[in-house]
């Protein structure tokens, strides 16, 4: 009984640490996005609250906490009310097997990457519930488009992850990192292709520019979360930036060697790689224009999916003739 209680206490501690990390990381990323976008557009961004606006996100959280909750007339109340849960809870659950270091992981599941992919897919439900429940035309269109986009890009995303699983021969996140001790995966040509497909589809998965049709401000106001205010809006925002960190963390683990690296402690390497990818995607966001809906869908089905399927076959062939 005692080892059981010990491990339960350890699990609670890890949970609190993960939750703290999620909250701080989301706030940091929101601040970083504002600063990076400001620099790219030759502005300075938030400067007043704290050193270079570092406390701006904290001030925003307090403001959102105090904002009135507006239930739109004709809303499907329970669907509308539960949607933030369906979006934010999966984003927190993914941290069960996010490998920050050789022992800095909550639980190294033997189906790690499969678990992560399946749990993140649940957020599509939340997005569609938000769109449907809001009783708003913009929300409905945003939710529909978002669901179509996310499921379309899920296919090349999973196919590129499949290539990594074939190479590593395991689904465990730590196992995939250990398989890269001989050389990081993106150095091999077939895995570099998979890495590029992964980055493009993951950008679409989190609805970021150039794939931000669901939230295209100039046509759909704010997409599926148009009718959300206060803390409910904040939950969508936290989930969005947590998912952003998750895709960068998965990319770092699968292709860039995860926490592997010389000299510095392993969590530093993991965070360095993840935030490097995040910075790159922010740079992309504030550089490229938005794609059109039909261009985006045909790019997923006619461009990325055939290439990803071919990549699976080529990788299989390379591995079979090698061993």
């Amino acid at each position, binding site marked *: 009984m005692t080892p059981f209680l010990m491990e339960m206490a350890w699990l609670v501690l890890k949970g609190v640490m993960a939750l703290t990390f999620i909250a701080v990381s989301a706030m940091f990323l929101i601040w970083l996005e504002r600063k990076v976008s400001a620099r790219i557009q030759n502005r300075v961004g938030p400067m007043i609250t704290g050193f270079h606006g570092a406390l701006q996100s904290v001030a925003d959280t307090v403001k959102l906490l105090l904002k009135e909750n507006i239930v739109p007339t004709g809303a499907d109340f329970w669907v509308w009310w539960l949607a933030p849960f369906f979006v934010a809870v999966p984003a927190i659950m993914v941290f069960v097997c996010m490998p920050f270091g050789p022992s800095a992981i909550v639980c190294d599941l033997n189906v790690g990457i499969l678990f992560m992919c399946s749990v993140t897919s649940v957020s599509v439900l939340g997005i569609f519930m938000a769109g449907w429940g809001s009783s708003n035309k913009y929300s*409905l269109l945003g939710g529909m488009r978002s669901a179509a986009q996310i499921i379309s890009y899920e296919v090349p995303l999973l196919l590129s992850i499949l290539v990594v699983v074939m190479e590593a021969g395991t689904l465990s996140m730590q196992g995939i990192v250990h398989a890269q001790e001989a050389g990081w995966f993106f150095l091999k040509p077939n895995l570099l292709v998979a890495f590029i497909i992964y980055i493009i589809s993951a950008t679409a998965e989190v609805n970021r520019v150039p794939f931000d049709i669901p939230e295209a401000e100039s046509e759909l106001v704010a997409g599926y979360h148009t009718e959300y205010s206060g803390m409910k809006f904040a939950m969508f925002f936290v989930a969005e930036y947590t998912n952003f960190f998750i895709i960068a963390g998965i990319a770092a683990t699968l292709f860039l060697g995860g926490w592997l690296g010389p000299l510095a402690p392993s969590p530093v390497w993991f965070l360095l790689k993840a935030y490097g990818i995040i910075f790159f995607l922010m740079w992309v966001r504030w550089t490229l224009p938005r794609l059109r809906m039909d261009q985006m869908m045909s790019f997923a089905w006619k461009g990325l999916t055939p290439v990803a399927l071919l990549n699976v076959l080529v990788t299989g062939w390379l591995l079979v003739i090698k061993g």
Partner: protein
Amino acid sequence: MQTVLPDYIPIMFFCLLGIGFVGSAFVVSWLLRPKAPSSEKCAPYECGEIVRGTARIQFNIRFYLIALIFVIFDVEILFTIPWAVVFQKMGMQAYLDMVAFIVVLALGLVYAWKKGALEWQ
């Protein structure tokens, strides 16, 4: 460290943690926020115009087609994942089996493409 707890305990714990996190944020905000709804304030946002009609509109059939194709591909990938883990130990035979499977699927994609299911007007 994880030796006694089954693998699903952390997953369940994190699920509850997430629900608790979102729920407590809602409760705190419910205690602090003003509550003064009015019919204008609660009207669905339509750029300030008076709302016309319902939001439960008919949407494009394309969304269903995309969802159908997605289900086929998703199930296929789910079949492929166990194969990807072990095929290196099973050699050429396992590889050729999967080539046949993926080729059949690719033919399905070509069929959907030719039929125009992937077009988006």
